[in-house]
């Protein structure tokens, strides 16, 4: 079995998502970070609790799969998901992972209290959108092209007024859908440089090990087996767009036969089903763990194609 493990970021969290998380892991994290996780909607309005909970959920699933003898051949995280990805490939240990995630969340929470955020444009090409952004972007009106999840679905990051201007232009240029995301931070743009800087300082003190498998890099869309690139991605990915589209294209060249989608949610279902129509795919969020194991074991045995 040659599997690609995909770790989404925030956006699909839901109350009670930690119900089946191993309780000793939960307590470990709560003690380590000195926070209490309630796993409810209220909690998830708080950046720190939200991001820590998502990472906790992903780490729990990674641990459980590895305990059953499943290892990734490729890992791909999206934004926050890169921390669990780095953990899954053996580059980042648990303690540092949670400390980093907490720090990242704190920094993000305090960076831009208002006026900033993200938007999404569907139906324009990158070139078209870059042109529109260049017409609006200005030191007082910062806006940047951000995450690229599919060839025709691209995010914007920056000041909300500037984003709205681009969205209007986009609609005029034939975009099929435009919307402002409910995210209060201009993630994955140069506006995040100060945060990246702090993360970088912290990561410099951490030993990032050589991964056991291929790591797909958020901030370049390329693949690597070198720890220095992973370290750079963990510290700097917030400054760059997530080139998820490219990560997935590169992943196809590695010819995985099984795609394991980690919780929460299934944000990339459409693009993944197009890209990997012939591979086995599983969304851990949709099955109880024993069912997931049943399927993975069946696919491993290769009982059918």
């Amino acid at each position, binding site marked *: 079995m040659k599997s690609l493990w995909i770790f989404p970021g925030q956006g699909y969290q839901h109350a009670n998502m930690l119900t089946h998380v191993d309780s000793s892991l939960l307590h470990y994290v709560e003690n380590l970070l000195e926070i209490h996780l309630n796993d409810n909607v209220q909690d998830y309005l708080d950046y720190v609790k939200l991001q820590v909970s998502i990472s906790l959920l992903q780490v729990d699933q990674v641990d459980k799969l590895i305990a059953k003898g499943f290892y990734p051949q490729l890992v791909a995280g999206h934004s926050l998901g890169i921390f669990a990805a780095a953990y899954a490939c053996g580059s980042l240990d648990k303690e540092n992972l949670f400390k980093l995630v907490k720090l990242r969340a704190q920094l993000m929470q305090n960076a831009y209290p208002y006026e900033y955020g993200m938007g999404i444009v569907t139906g324009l090409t990158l070139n078209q959108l870059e042109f529109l952004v260049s017409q609006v972007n200005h030191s007082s009106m910062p806006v940047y092209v951000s995450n690229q999840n599919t060839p025709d679905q691209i995010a914007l990051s920056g000041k909300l007024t500037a984003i709205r201007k681009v969205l209007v232009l986009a609609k005029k240029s*034939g975009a*099929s*859908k435009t919307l402002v995301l409910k995210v209060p931070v201009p993630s994955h743009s140069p506006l995040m440089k100060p945060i990246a800087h702090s993360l970088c300082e912290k990561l410099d003190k951490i030993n990032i090990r050589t991964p056991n498998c291929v790591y797909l890099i958020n901030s370049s869309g390329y693949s690597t087996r070198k720890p220095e690139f992973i370290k750079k991605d963990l510290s700097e990915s917030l400054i760059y767009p997530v080139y998820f589209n490219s990560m997935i294209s590169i992943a196809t060249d590695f010819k995985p036969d099984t795609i394991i989608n980690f919780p929460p949610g299934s944000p990339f279902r459409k693009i993944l089903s197009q890209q990997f129509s012939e591979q086995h795919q599983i969304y851990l969020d949709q099955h109880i763990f024993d069912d997931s194991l049943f399927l993975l074991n069946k696919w491993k045995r290769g009982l059918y194609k």
Partner: protein
Amino acid sequence: MEKLYFKFTTTQPVTKFVHVGVVASGDLEIILRPNNHSYSTLNIITGSDGFKSTWSNVLSRFFDRYPLQGDFEINDFGATPGVVNLRLSQVMEVLKNEQ
């Protein structure tokens, strides 16, 4: 989903009702009814948003070549311009066959 409306000046009144196609994935249906105007109307419901100018181009090119006059209703479930053109041309062929 998006609703579109177009009007084209046309010169060849049709006398028959015509229906072609299915609202299947990547396909569409066209319903053509005769009218007494000197133009054609098109009421389109399309599942793919943001393609108004493409529709306009497809229709202009079609009516430029085959100026059929009537009221068109189109229900589109994501057809490519090629498929749209095929179905429009099939309407033309149905009319031709019946002549």
